[in-house]
């Protein structure tokens, strides 16, 4: 696993899977575009997750593809950064922006899986949330 900082321009030429370092920890990725998004998040509190990005989820094994670009907002807190978006009400709190974004993406995949599993038994607001999330990401 690499521990030195990699510039986004360098990511496209790398053999996948790759690893990047965030502020304090190294995070593995299998799609450089996700890594790129994380790097952008390091200097801003809005992270754009672009169409086509693969969100790998090793455990449970279920990756998702972004089918429409969306943003993750990062809110500084006493313990780090809280990641949230307009897609649903989940939040993730981590020490660094990069970790918060990555954790949020994994949590979003889990959320979609959960909503899909219970699709027949959802209240109206949860059905709306399901429609919204699947308009942005798709399990692949």
């Amino acid at each position, binding site marked *: 696993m690499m521990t030195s900082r990699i510039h986004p321009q360098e990511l496209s030429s790398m053999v996948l899977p790759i690893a990047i370092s965030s502020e304090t920890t190294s995070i593995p990725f299998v799609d450089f575009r996700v890594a790129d998004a994380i790097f952008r998040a390091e200097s801003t509190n809005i992270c754009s997750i672009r169409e086509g990005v693969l969100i790998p989820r090793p*455990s*449970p094994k279920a990756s998702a593809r972004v089918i429409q670009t969306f943003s993750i907002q990062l*809110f500084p*807190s*006493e*313990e780090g950064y*809280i990641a*949230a978006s307009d897609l649903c*009400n*989940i*939040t*993730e*709190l981590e020490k660094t922006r990069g970790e918060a974004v990555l*954790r949020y993406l*994994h*949590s979003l995949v*889990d959320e979609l899986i*959960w909503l899909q599993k*219970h699709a027949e*038994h*959802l*209240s*109206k*607001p*949860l059905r709306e949330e399901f429609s919204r999330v699947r308009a942005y990401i798709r399990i692949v």
Partner: protein
Amino acid sequence: MGICIRDLKHVAKAVLGCELENDGDHVRYSLKVNGKFIANFKFSRSWKGNYQIEEFILHKQAQSMHCSLQTWKGLLQGRISKQKYFQELLKQELINQAEFEILCE
């Protein structure tokens, strides 16, 4: 005074009767009425008893539970009854009168 995970777990399970689900890296509590998922929220499995929940996260949980932040905090702090919370769900027609009465028993 802050609100900690212990308060959240107590209210979700013992007061509202939410179903607990270990969902990967998270703990999920779902309010299920007559087989239908009305509302739910989840939090990281790493958050333990005394962990103080951030205001912003409480706000998002309140949205997930279809109530105001004021109601959610009041419920978690024991200042608001479950009847008041279920009344908010009734007003939004997320539950019907019969379900409201059963939930308030």
